[in-house]
């Protein structure tokens, strides 16, 4: 499986994400925000956490207009896989690949801690290594992780089993406790928590490993 990890000015989880992909057996290329094309044969694009373009205007807004993101969008529209974590999730909502938006945390504070996530569906290449209902411990580190979508969008996400993860103890005010959502074709996942920070025994937790392993398994046999 081949992965590409996008690097924006201000990304800070790009190398962690690359390490997590590599540990799951992927060949990883880093791609710079000014590149206009993804490497040939990429199966999945990782959009990492951080503070792309300093969070100017809105988190992810400027990144969503960058040359590489046009290619990421085209990749997703061709049915390619895209994983957006934290700032990456914000970028994906700004591009319109995922519905809704991420608002300032309801408590206004930047929150950096490990939280409980409930796996809401195992029906995706990302979550098939878990069972629906599993509770896993994954770190969050964000200021703008408060998921917002209008009532119709929320109902559609829930009705189509597209909520991937919810918080067991909502830290940021997110609607319906949503921590991560899937696209209609279930190949684009955006999530605020950081599975790449719980993917090695040295991280103090390995509950995120199953996500990368399941993905590598699904995309290698695909």
């Amino acid at each position, binding site marked *: 499986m081949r992965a590409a990890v996008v690097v924006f000015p201000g990304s800070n989880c790009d190398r962690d994400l690359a390490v997590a992909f590599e540990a799951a057996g992927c060949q990883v290329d880093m791609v710079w925000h000014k590149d206009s094309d993804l490497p040939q044969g990429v199966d999945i694009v990782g959009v990492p956490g951080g503070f792309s373009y300093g969070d100017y*205007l*809105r988190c992810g*807004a*400027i990144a969503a*207009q960058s040359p590489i993101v046009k290619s990421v969008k085209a990749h997703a529209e061709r049915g390619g896989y895209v994983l957006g974590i934290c700032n990456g999730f914000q970028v994906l*909502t*700004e591009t319109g690949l995922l*519905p*809704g*938006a991420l*608002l*300032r*945390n*309801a*408590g*206004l504070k930047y929150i950096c801690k490990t939280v409980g996530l409930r796996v809401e569906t195992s029906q995706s290449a990302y979550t098939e290594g878990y069972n629906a209902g599993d509770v896993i411990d994954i770190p969050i580190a964000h200021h703008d992780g*408060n998921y*917002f*979508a*209008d009532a119709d969008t929320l109902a559609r996400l829930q009705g189509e089993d597209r909520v991937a993860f919810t918080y067991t103890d909502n830290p940021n*005010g997110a609607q319906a406790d949503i921590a991560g959502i899937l696209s209609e074709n279930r190949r684009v996942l955006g999530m605020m928590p950081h599975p790449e920070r719980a993917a090695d025994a040295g991280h103090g937790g390995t509950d995120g490993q199953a996500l990368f392993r399941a993905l590598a398994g699904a995309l290698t046999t695909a």
Partner: protein
Amino acid sequence: MKARVHVMLKNGVLDPQGEAVRHALGAIGFDGVNGVRQGKVIELDLAEGSTEADVNAMCEKLLANTVIESYTVEMS
């Protein structure tokens, strides 16, 4: 020519920053503030001949996220 764009969170979208400002106003003795909504103002210095339609397009594409924000444009 210039344009001034006001971007506000839509009604119904929680504005925790506005809420914090409201609390702070109360704490320093300004009673009677029932609500505060915080937005942003973006001033654009435009080439002659630019139209309000151009600025609306900028808002739709980048300056506002219409999932959560509304905008108004003043040309001058």
